[in-house]
């Protein structure tokens, strides 16, 4: 068979283009790699198997293509829509989907867990006939079930944000407000207070919970330790509230009967 070399020119051009691009790719890798590693370190891996079923192929490609934030935003708007309709299964599914798509924004974890822990028990009670018709024991059961889901959800958030005090505080609040479990709430407030950049109120609430549990001595020691580390002046003292902490210390000294000579001297 006879071949015309001129007809192969486009093929030759194509080969030259591919070869040149490969060389460029190799040559630019050292420039690109450090930047890419740095960016990837801040991007949690996509767990596609958990979300692929819920999304179409186009959305999945969008996610892989770097549009996680906006896709998550869209689904958060959708979450808000089904939440407005008191649609429990849909809200629970979308809340989980949003953080599966983009686990980085804390906002999704905190607000998703609030929908699960605080709104859904109400929806279930309403669906079962209302607060008057549903026995207290069943209401308590709904609270416990939804709280368990919310706490699990927040704990999976800790997998992405292990040092995030607000997640510990949110777990603590679920125990405190929904389950009236002061002991576990105190445990999580302690964890929150031990994280870097923890809000100062976490330490104060931990001490307050210890007092409620009758562990005044522990509360007293904790507050003394806390007070020593609090900023005493400037803007930071507006949230640190050292005067309030000192007032609590004095109250505890009275309750514990600590003589004035042994009172805490800041």
């Amino acid at each position, binding site marked *: 068979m006879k071949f015309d070399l001129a007809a192969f020119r486009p093929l030759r051009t194509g080969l030259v283009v591919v070869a040149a691009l*490969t060389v460029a*790719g190799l040559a630019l890798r050292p420039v690109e790699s450090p*930047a890419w590693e740095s960016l990837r370190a801040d991007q949690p891996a996509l767990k596609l198997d958990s979300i692929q079923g819920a999304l179409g192929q186009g959305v999945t490609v969008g996610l892989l293509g770097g549009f996680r*934030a906006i896709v998550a935003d869209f689904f958060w708007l959708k979450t808000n829509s089904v939440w407005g309709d008191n649609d429990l299964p849909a809200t629970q599914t979308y809340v989980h989907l949003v953080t599966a798509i983009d686990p980085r924004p804390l906002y999704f974890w905190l607000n998703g867990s609030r929908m699960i822990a605080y709104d859904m028990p109400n929806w279930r009670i309403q669906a079962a006939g209302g607060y008057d018709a549903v026995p207290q024991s069943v209401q308590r059961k709904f609270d416990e079930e939804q709280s368990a889901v919310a706490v699990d959800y927040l704990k999976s958030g800790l997998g992405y944000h292990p040092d995030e005090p607000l997640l510990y505080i949110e777990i603590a609040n679920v125990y405190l407000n929904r389950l009236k479990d002061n002991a576990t709430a105190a445990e999580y407030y302690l964890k929150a207070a031990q994280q870097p950049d923890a809000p100062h109120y976490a330490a104060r609430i931990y001490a307050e919970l210890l007092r409620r549990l009758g562990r005044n001595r522990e509360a007293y020691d904790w507050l003394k330790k806390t007070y020593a580390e609090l900023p005493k002046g400037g803007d930071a003292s507006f949230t640190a509230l050292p005067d309030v902490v000192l007032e609590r210390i004095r109250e505890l000294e009275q309750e514990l009967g600590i003589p004035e000579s042994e009172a805490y001297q800041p």
Partner: protein
Amino acid sequence: MSSGTSSSSSRVGHTAGAAESGRVPFSFARLRLIAGNTFLEAVRQKLFNFLLLLAVALVASAQFFREFNFGSSELKFIADFGFGALVFFGSTLTIATTAQLFFSEIENRTALTLLAKPIWRSEFIFGKWLGVFAVVGVFCAVTIGLLLGLLFYRENALMNLHPEAFEAGRIVNYADILLVGVLQWLKFGVLTAIVLLIASFSNTNLYTVVTGFFVLVICHLQYLARDAYGNIDNLLVRLPVMLISYVFPNFQLFNLADHAAQGAGVEYDVAARVGLYGLAYIAVMGGLAVYSFRNREI
């Protein structure tokens, strides 16, 4: 004959200063001329105005987030949607405008008139590139400018409504958002050069647009090939996957928007590397477009 006749006795044959002998050097002045013409033609196109309006409308509609009472997180939503509009409409504008402007020259045969002048084909290709880059630059400037304005306006309002969320100062880093906008513009510059490379051997506008979008998707997913080839044992599969990871640039690298939107802060060392990477790819893709276009028979 007419006024032609009345003046036709005058000569057009005295030198205009352009007919000296010797080499014709590469000229940035000619490149700028072609770029200027390309820019003018592009901004007169309905597509540019349409996409610009759409992007502006989308960014402006971020006001809609006020309905949800997101608190200070509203700023993240505004930034995400603003960047989304920039990336989506910017990519569409880049691919469609580059292909359209290139093929309007070929199909209307204005390229024939232009390339029959003493100009280099590299001046033509880089002139087209610069013209489209300027058009996309206007688009990016308007979209980012609007986004910055909206964020500033909403942040001030939210600072009054939720002062506790702003104890550590402003949440939005405006310089980072501007930087991300510039890097996206640079990415569109690489995309323009890629579309010109495709157009240089393609026969139709449609083929160029479709292939352009296809390559855009591959460039966004290039990192998957890069992650994968190390784990593939079969050499016959491994080599092509490896080739993909080297042939296509990594467009995810330019995606610093999430960092800026979440206030994570853009590292300037990373931004500088991304900038260098973009400029290098513009040069490589543009050079290859010139190489391929030189072989093209007009």
